[in-house]
């Protein structure tokens, strides 16, 4: 019975195994493995240049990893090997949506249109790949109305409903961040990957963001994977934190565990002089272990 509940609990939506990414001579990610639980918020943190966005780009298909396996298991039980799919199919078939560190809006399209573009594949099918829609079949009109309703739903959630008919480029920065999340949600994802959603937000906006993310998880059951520097967001909402430094995992666990992990503190804050020897000793110890296993 206990084993059964244990198995029930361990149900990762995303499994990254031995991921490596090499750019020329630079090993951006080196043998990195982690799992993201279904229905949880997993945060990926680390100092600048640790390789967080590279991990994201590998998961969402913008980079093809040098080595490793990325498995996505949908709620239905279907499995996808993301490293083998082209980028657009990762969203279309595997249902992974993402946002970008530097916001990528369709700035000349209205806010509403941005959300309609996100429902492209659904609407394409409904319009009979354009042909039926061009001839004015009612199926497309029906689907089109539904898509506007879905867009309205997410606009309300992201509190952008007032600006629905304004060009997206006209929105203030914080609203653009929310719009990007709403747009990603309109693709109907099972895993939502957010690349620094709180970057550049003021405290009030990042509080609203926390609420939005928790609402998404609660209401839709979407699992969330996020990269974040803002510790108030990370510690507040994430269930599970993975810490990356120089392309390698240095810590993995609950927010409280990670917060008190000396390696994480050392990575973020550096260590005091007297502790350096200690840390070097630890590292040598670890390397010795590795050497031993290798032999």
């Amino acid at each position, binding site marked *: 019975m206990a084993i059964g509940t244990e198995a029930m609990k361990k149900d990762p939506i995303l499994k990254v195994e031995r991921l490596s990414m090499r750019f020329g001579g630079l090993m951006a990610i080196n043998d990195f493995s982690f799992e993201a639980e279904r229905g949880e918020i997993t945060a990926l943190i680390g100092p600048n240049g640790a390789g967080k966005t590279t991990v994201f780009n590998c998961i969402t298909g913008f980079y093809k990893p040098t080595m490793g396996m990325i498995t996505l298991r949908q709620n239905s039980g279907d499995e996808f090997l993301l490293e083998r799919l082209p980028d*657009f199919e990762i969203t279309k078939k595997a249902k992974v*949506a993402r946002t970008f560190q530097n916001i990528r809006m369709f700035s000349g399209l209205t806010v509403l249109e941005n959300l309609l*573009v996100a429902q492209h594949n659904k609407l394409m099918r409904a319009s009979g790949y354009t042909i039926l829609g061009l001839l004015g079949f009612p199926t497309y009109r029906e689907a089109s109305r539904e898509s506007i309703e879905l867009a309205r739903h997410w606009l309300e959630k992201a509190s952008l409903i007032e600006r629905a008919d*304004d060009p997206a480029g006209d929105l203030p920065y914080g609203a653009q961040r929310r719009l990007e999340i709403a747009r990603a949600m309109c693709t109907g994802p099972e895993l939502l990957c957010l690349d620094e959603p709180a970057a550049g937000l003021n405290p009030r906006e990042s509080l609203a963001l926390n609420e939005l993310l928790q609402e998404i998880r609660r209401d839709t059951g979407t699992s969330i994977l996020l990269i974040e520097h803002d510790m108030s967001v990370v510690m507040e909402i994430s269930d599970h934190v993975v810490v990356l430094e120089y392309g390698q995992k240095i810590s993995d666990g609950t927010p409280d565990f990670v917060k008190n992990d000396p390696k994480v503190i050392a990575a973020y804050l550096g260590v005091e002089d007297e502790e350096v020897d200690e840390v070097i000793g630890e590292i040598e110890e670890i390397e010795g272990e590795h050497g031993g296993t290798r032999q």
Partner: protein
Amino acid sequence: MANVASTTASAGSELTARALREAVFAGLITLGLFVLFVGLKSDQNIRNELILTQRWGLLAIFVAVAMVGRFLIVVYVQPRFAKRKAAKAAAPDVVKKDTFFTRQWPKIAVVMLLLYPPVIVSFVGVQGSLKWVDNFGIQILIYVMLAWGLNIVVGLAGLLDLGYVAFYAVGAYSYALLSSYFGLSFWVLLPVAGLLAALWGIVLGFPVLRLRGDYLAIVTLAFGEIIRLVLINWTEVTKGTFGVSGIAKATLFGIKFDASKDGFAALFDLPLSSAYYKIFLFYLILALALLTAFVTIRLRRMPIGRAWEALREDEIACRSLGINTVTTKLTAFATGAMFGGFAGSFFAVRQGFVSPESFVFLESAVILAIVVLGGMGSLTGIAIAAVVMIGGTEILRELTFLKMIFGPAFTPELYRMLIFGLAMVTVMVWKPRGFVGSREPTAFLRQRRAVSGSFTKEGHG
């Protein structure tokens, strides 16, 4: 009251004094500038000696023009501009009222176009209408259609295509060759020409999928030239530079436009004239152009049209939303090319003769210029631009009074390109986003508000 009046009067006299002062300065500068250029002229007299001719009268005119001009600018033009600027700043948000005309004008324009041939015929007679219907009506509508077709590729999808004329050529030669070799009719070959052009659009699309911006433009330019060179050099089929002549005319439900007994003129008991055929062609190209507009408007509200515009705005974001950018780009190329093909086969049936000379790079440039000048993505703006550019250059031929001014040797047609270029520069300075720079959203929740041109992107490949 008196006080106010006196202050305005004193302000007025102050202005006049300043204007007079500036006029004197302008006069002095003009005098200094032109005294040696205009006032004195070196000349040869009858004995081949160098002499100085004095032209004080002319110099005086120059100076007077400068002084009067400066005076008028300071007293009238500058205050008026300042006043207008102040008025604009005072009332920044003037909500434009939707009048009947602004709402219904596309329909009004279509009705006017439908009535155009009968009105022209009633004014200048059947024979006289030839020039106005053919040179103006048909010519402009061909370019409207071509520019609307290119608008799908450049304006909506943001893919800069400098070789659009290639698809026009494919359409024209498809009709010319298939009709002269196999005797197929125009109505069969019109869709065939469109499909063949679309096929070539996809053929062009594949190699350029990964290219952006300048690189894309160069490759499409090369593609246009390749098609033209093939047409020139494949002499067994295309007859090279001689071109294909004697292309069959189109028929109206099987009625031919010729002198035969069951021809159009004989059937309706009308005098034999080529004008009827031209009027028929006018309605044909009008229908084709309206089809292009209708399909474009419909497509913009469909997922594929939105994907095109999204592609123009940000390709990477498109991919992150599950949009297959490969098929999206290819459909844009194919759809644009298809309308180019339709227009091409119409061109062949109208001219009765096609040769590679009609499909040079300049044509691509003109079509692209119309799209840019009209405002990328806007059907209305593009139609206006086509009327201005093509109609404008045609009307230059009519301006015979210019000969009276510049002498009988002046041929206005030769200055076409000069004026064309000047007009483009002027419009681009005055309206950098084209005649209609704003974008109509394809869906709205509460209120349809045009998106200002400053937010839309031009696309980058």
